[in-house]
């Protein structure tokens, strides 16, 4: 008789623990949607990826359509090779442009895909040929300063 009291209480305890885990997974975490669906991988090469990270979102028109799977450096061309995993519900044409943008002024960086007009779609293992590297703030500032400097020397002569 006493044993059954333990059994019930322990059963409830374990069930409550698993319930809490499910709550964490579903409501707090993001175990739903994109993560579970498979998708296809495409390759994009960038001159500079800036602060792009693995698992950063891939967006098209602001909608998350995939994630960055891996980032490596191609030692032949010295380009950054990013593998993007895109949800298989979304199809993008061959001449899609991939660019690295920043969400907000200080936000995280993500890959933006702008669809082109080609009728052939990207598939597993394809490569996005048109890419735009990340904007590096320091480079922009130095470019701006140099152009200002050359401007002022030009006008003084």
């Amino acid at each position, binding site marked *: 008789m006493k044993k059954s009291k*333990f059994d019930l209480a322990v059963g409830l*305890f374990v069930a409550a*623990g698993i319930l*809490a885990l499910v709550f964490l*997974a579903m409501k707090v975490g*993001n175990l739903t949607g994109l993560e579970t669906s498979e998708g296809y991988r495409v390759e994009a090469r960038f001159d500079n990826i800036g602060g792009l*990270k693995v698992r950063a979102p891939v967006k098209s028109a602001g909608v998350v359509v995939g994630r960055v799977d891996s980032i490596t450096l191609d030692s032949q061309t010295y380009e950054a090779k990013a593998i993007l995993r895109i949800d298989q519900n979304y199809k993008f044409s061959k001449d899609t442009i991939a660019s690295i943008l920043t969400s907000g002024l200080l936000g995280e960086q993500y890959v933006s895909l702008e669809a082109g007009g080609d009728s052939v779609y990207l598939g597993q293992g394809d490569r996005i040929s048109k890419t735009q590297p990340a904007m590096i703030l320091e480079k922009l500032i130095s470019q701006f300063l140099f152009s200002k400097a050359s401007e002022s020397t030009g006008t003084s002569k």
Partner: protein
Amino acid sequence: MNSVIEMIEGLGRSVLNALARLGLAGRFFLAILMVIGVPLRRFSLLVRELYFSGVRSLLIIVVSGTFVGMVLAIQGYEVLQRFGSAETLGVLVALSLVRELGPVVTALLFAGRAGSAVTAEIGLMQATDQIAAMDMMAVNPIARIISPRFLASVVSLPLLACMFSAAGVFGAYLVGVKLIGIDDGSFWSQMQAGVDFRLDIVNGLIKSLVFGVAVGLIAVFEGYYAPPTAEGVSSATTRTVVTSSLAVLMLDFVLTVWMFRGLNG
């Protein structure tokens, strides 16, 4: 001059003693692992220990989780609203709970609530020769007494940590959304965008599993090797709480470095 030599000798002796104790604990751990199948086969042994360690700790875990979440929400809101990003409160609370506070605070509370009780129980059994009597009857006390208590701690700590985190998120929801008035939708959606299942929740679970092994081992070890006196049992109980708290915090540092360093690389 002599006193200096004595001091150095004493230092060396205490270091050697500590090392020998560590070795003993390692051997004891192996002995437990050898018979870990027994409480799995005789399930009622495990269920009884789960009741005393897990179910009885439920109230303190859920209540403290709720209050920790509520405090986190108030403090987090205080800072975040200066940057006009009070909506990210959900991420802040959920990440700190799931990654750190859930496993760590649960393990600390568990060491105080259940670990000390296990040590006192086993220590008293040892002091009243119950364990020696069992040995005489050809019942392996490690299989019958020690391993169910150890396994119960390993099983119940991750479950309790999940409940702690869930209660904390609920507490933060109460304060953040119901009391302060952060937008309900963005609270949850920001949280879901910021918390990753594999990276955050599973890593937190792994942490609490490791803490369960550490706290359980320390509790049964201190009890089993407690000097068979009233004073011995009481100091063993104290040592359980102190050693497990230190072990949990140190292990947490090691695990955090291993899991979350290079996350942004």
